[in-house]
């Protein structure tokens, strides 16, 4: 049963010959970490979709391309389906907060190609009030990663099937992975569930009593940090039409 050959997943077109690697830049960097590695994706992109992505950046054997949010979906579609690239797997998607920059969130997509044995990092910048196109149409698995980025950083993704919090509680205030989110958290606000009311699905805001502040006031106070609209406290079961996207078929 154990085999060595890497079977291409069903449904992908047969492999084609990869184009020759790009000519290496003449100056060899002194740091071995900055060595240039061969990767067909930047060349293919330059060929087919010129001007969409930046020049590749090499570090520690990894290739990074920067793309503007407007071209993101187009580039992703291409990278996923082009036989020379064929990045079938979205290994990871995450964001980072750079509060000092103009567009504060940097979002990275770690792509992997099983067929070509390649990895690629796609990078994009997005501001607090802007939103990114969701890549769930290309990789349905981006669903949870995008929810996580939304939850922890407050990045909006357009076209996501259901962008709600995933790791934090539904009624959490703020997005903890932002750099201006204090490490001990905000002053506590409790939303206590009263047993008798649970069946009627309502809850009491007791933060008023505890700290003299209502949860809503806290939200207002930290408005600068609370970019994304809060999700509903009680999330109903998903309706059937989102389900198709959930399954990723």
């Amino acid at each position, binding site marked *: 049963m154990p085999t060595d050959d*890497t*079977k291409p997943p069903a449904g992908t077109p047969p492999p084609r010959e990869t184009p020759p690697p790009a000519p290496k830049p003449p100056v060899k960097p002194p740091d071995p970490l900055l060595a240039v590695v061969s990767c067909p994706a930047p060349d293919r992109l330059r060929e087919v979709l010129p001007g969409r992505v930046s020049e590749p950046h090499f*570090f520690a054997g990894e290739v990074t391309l920067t793309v503007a949010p407007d071209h993101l979906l187009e580039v992703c579609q291409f990278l996923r389906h082009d036989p020379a690239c064929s990045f079938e797997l979205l290994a*990871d998607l995450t964001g980072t907060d750079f509060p000092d920059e103009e567009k504060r969130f940097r979002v990275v997509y770690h792509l992997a190609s099983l067929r070509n044995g390649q990895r690629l990092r796609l990078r994009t910048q997005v501001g607090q009030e802007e939103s990114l196109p969701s890549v769930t149409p290309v990789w349905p698995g981006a669903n949870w990663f995008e929810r996580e980025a939304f939850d922890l950083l407050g990045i909006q993704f357009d076209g996501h099937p259901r962008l709600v919090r995933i790791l934090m509680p539904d009624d959490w205030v703020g997005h903890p992975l932002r750099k201006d989110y204090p490490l001990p958290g905000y002053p506590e606000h409790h939303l206590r569930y009263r047993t008798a009311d649970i069946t009627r699905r309502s809850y009491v805001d007791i933060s008023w009593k505890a700290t003299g502040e209502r949860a809503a006031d806290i939200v207002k106070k930290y408005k600068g940090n609370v970019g994304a609209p809060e999700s509903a406290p009680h999330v109903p079961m998903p309706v059937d039409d989102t389900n198709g996207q959930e*399954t990723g078929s």
Partner: protein
Amino acid sequence: MFRTQEMEINMGPQHPSTHGVLRLKLRLDGERVVDSWPVIGYLHRGIEKLSESKEFIKITPFTDRMDYVCAMSGNLAYLGAVEKLCGIKVPEKAAYIRVIMVELNRIASHLLWLGTHALDIGAMSIFLYGFREREMILDLFEAYCGARLTYNAFRISGVPADLPPGWKEECTGFLKLFRQRHREYEQILTANRIWLKRTKDVGYMDAEHCLALSVTGPVLRAAGVARDLRKDEPYAIYDQLDFDIPVDDGCDTYARYIVRMAEMLQSVHMVEQCLEKMPSEGPLMGMKGRRMKPRKDEEIYFAIEGPRGEQGVYLISDGTDRPYRCKFRNSSFANLQALAPMVQGGLVADVVAIIGTLDIVLGDSDR
């Protein structure tokens, strides 16, 4: 005239077979699952946020506490990432010790999966058999690093200590015994008719869907894709070892069972080779001191093949000895996405079988 009513039930967060605190909202028509919505985050401890304020070396203990079932892999993934970021070389002997530990931990992790998965399906004895052997592995770990669950056994650029005297012999003895015991497990389950009935064609997911949903590890290999980072992107000393990637194209729970069972034997094989090939002398740490100066504003992603799939770490440096951003790409998190489509249309009994077959650790997915 009368219609049957759909019923919404909460499976978890406190439920015997959600393996921790997974909560699964199910909508049932009788016993059949119409719809499901996994809810996670009950174990979210903010490890990524915490990491941003710690030095590189102080983050290692957190990695133990994410996937506490295979803490060695977590350590290795994180340390590998730091070493990649800083360009640190690991001495050969240390790399061998790391691989021995990680592979033993993979066996332990798979044993835990086997026990709980079988227990969920109702076979209770194999649970205790599996734990008997897992205890032996934990004893070996205890002899090496003093801990049984959260090891923190490796350091940046190497390992802190050599294998204690007599450890090799004990490990060899265990591996020999384990091969026998592995046959016992197979006797109990592999051809068991009820086991076949409960696992065949349950939780079907083919390679295309697995990849689309970022599912990796044994689940992907059981869908016929020989994806194994130990072969595809060899790290540590895996390129010097001789091993196979077990693959099955059943795409179902049974295929995953077969793949994981075969992986345990492969791990045994690897540890045996390591014990044999490991240099008896040599340095254990590749660098002196503990201050690290990575290049400013660089980012790396490093992934290893954990027992549950691709276990990656994404680091952004700002030139100091703390990461600017430390993101853990944990396989349980990604694999859990496959749960909802897998349980769709199945029965309640299949749900627990599928949760078991995905082999999730909630500490891993929630971080």
